[in-house]
């Protein structure tokens, strides 16, 4: 698939912009802060309903404006679809597909798929577990949009359960659990409040395990499909056999976690039972701390090079190659799965790579249907890529074409 046209209104630094795009390679060149990343960020937002740079929507809306609009014309198998998002911070986004509004923004997921690689992705290797979980879950959604719903159900369950753990903590902390039976003669009354809190907790355990095991199962299968390509892509970029690996670290009990770490993908029912069992065993700790300690939200993916973990050990360049390897592997997975190329975005990537890595990356992405590249210095992008496509100059929030490109519609700089 490819993006044929992008329209922005009050997105980031752009009061408005109309940008025509073609298949092949497009390189956006311009000085720092001119608005190159803003353009590709908008395309990423259409694909994921999120930005690769910020967690909230406020910075995406042009300073002083109330809402932003991003619209893309997406071509897949010669069939064009228009997708539009209206971003209003603090409120639910509104979305359109073709001419019709959709019930929920997530209904547009899957219309355009992107794999975006940017300097921020270094945190995949160096950052918190949450970064790696997000990578997996986002890829899961790109692969099959229905996971977006499962993800949001899981988050809601987690919030409810944590609220219960906090509010019921004073009641729950009292003594050990009594068997749920009527008191015998002379026996003190079972603490009813405590019993009812525990029964409610059981209900949330049940829901957490049901939805959590689905999410975990999906992640494990995804990782299993991703890992072979990961080593391949890492090696292709770095030109050295590395044995780059990714293993899943689960918060489930030891026996199950060990099998998962060894690459096994247990059935959903077993994961569900394991989750319930582990939840029971950490109950005291959960009540003390008032947070949920078991489930996919506590898991991590351990990245390693040879025998060493990447985090804390890999060099800066190796970390870059690793993050790039993950993204390229994701690209291949989606391409294979969907029988269609996602849009590949390489944001400020070439400046960070040595010349050998640049050339090898260029060779790897040469046959992708659409590649969008941003660079402050055009010369950082290997000639083979720039020769295959067009270069677009970005200056002060204006898009100007250089030789070889499709004509671009003029972009007014102000309202």
């Amino acid at each position, binding site marked *: 698939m490819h993006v044929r046209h992008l329209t922005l209104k009050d997105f980031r630094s752009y009061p408005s912009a109309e940008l025509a795009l073609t298949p092949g390679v497009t390189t956006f060149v311009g000085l720092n802060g001119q608005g190159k990343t803003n353009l590709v960020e908008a395309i990423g937002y259409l694909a994921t309903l999120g930005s690769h740079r910020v967690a909230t929507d406020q910075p995406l809306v042009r300073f002083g404006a109330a809402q932003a609009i991003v619209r893309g014309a997406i071509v897949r198998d010669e069939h064009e679809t228009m997708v539009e998002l209206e971003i209003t911070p603090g409120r639910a986004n509104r979305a359109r597909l073709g001419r019709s509004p959709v019930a929920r923004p997530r209904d547009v997921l899957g219309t355009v798929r992107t794999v975006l690689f940017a300097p921020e992705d270094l945190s995949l290797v160096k950052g918190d577990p949450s970064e790696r979980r997000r990578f997996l879950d986002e890829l899961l959604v790109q692969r099959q949009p229905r996971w977006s719903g499962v993800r949001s*159900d899981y988050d*809601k*369950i987690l*919030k*409810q*359960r944590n*609220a*219960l753990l906090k*509010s*019921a903590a004073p009641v729950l902390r009292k003594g050990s659990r009594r068997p749920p039976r009527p008191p015998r003669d002379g026996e003190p009354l079972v603490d009813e*409040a405590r019993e*009812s*809190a525990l*029964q*409610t907790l*059981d*209900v*949330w355990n*049940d*829901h957490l395990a049901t939805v959590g095991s689905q999410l975990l199962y999906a992640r494990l299968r995804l990782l299993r499909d991703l890992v072979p390509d990961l080593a391949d892509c890492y090696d292709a970029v770095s030109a050295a056999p590395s044995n780059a690996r990714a293993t899943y670290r689960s918060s489930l009990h030891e026996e199950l976690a060990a099998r998962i770490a060894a690459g096994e993908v247990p059935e959903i029912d077993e994961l569900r039972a394991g989750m319930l069992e582990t939840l029971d065993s950490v109950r005291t700790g959960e009540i003390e701390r008032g947070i949920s300690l078991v489930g996919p939200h506590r898991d991590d993916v351990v990245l390693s090079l040879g025998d060493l973990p990447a985090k804390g050990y890999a060099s800066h360049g190796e970390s870059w190659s690793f993050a790039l390897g993950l993204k390229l592997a994701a690209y291949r997975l989606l391409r294979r799965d969907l029988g269609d190329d996602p849009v590949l975005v390489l944001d400020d990537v070439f400046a960070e790579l040595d010349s050998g890595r640049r050339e090898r990356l260029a060779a790897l992405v040469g046959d992708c249907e659409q590649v969008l590249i941003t660079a402050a210095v055009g010369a950082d992008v290997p000639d083979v890529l720039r020769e295959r496509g067009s270069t677009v100059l970005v200056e002060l929030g204006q898009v100007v074409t250089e030789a070889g490109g499709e004509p671009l519609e003029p972009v007014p700089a102000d309202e």
Partner: protein
Amino acid sequence: MYEGAVQDLIDELGRLPGVGPKSAQRIAFHLLQQDSEDVNRLVTALTEVKAKVRFCEVCGNVAQAERCRICADPRRDQTSICVVEEPKDVVAIERTREFRGTYHVLGGAISPIDGIGPDDLRVRELMPRLASGEVQEVIIATDPNLEGEATATYLSRLLRDVGVTVTRLASGLPVGGDLEYADEVTLGRAFEGRRQVNA
């Protein structure tokens, strides 16, 4: 801040569900500009609703007497009870004409975030209704969203050993929504296709 009575009115209106400070102000000034007659009608309606309407002592639905119209009707099937979250759900289900039994209104759903646990709902009041042995089926018709599902799970576990058949409305209702927004046909079908729950 306004003086005395105006501010009191704004404060009271602001405590209503779904009314923010801005709307409260707008409504207050709207009322100020109305004829006394119009305002008096509103006052009467408010007083009457408090004086005449109460909650049915059996099922918790809104009622004009000790018992609601449905509980007082001898033609209703006393062997099945349909458990719902709110009185408005009773109205929605009555519209389908699919159900001839009686209701039990919980007054909400389990939602720890909102500080609502089983003890804040009319769960306890359900048990004596099942004690006589006359009731054979309890149909759980809580909303098809997370909190409704959690409440359904809680109830079906609670009723496991009571000796009644516990059923849940068939799927097909719009997920994540409110029961009251389901159209009659969909809701009617969900009723017909209800399934026994194994807690």
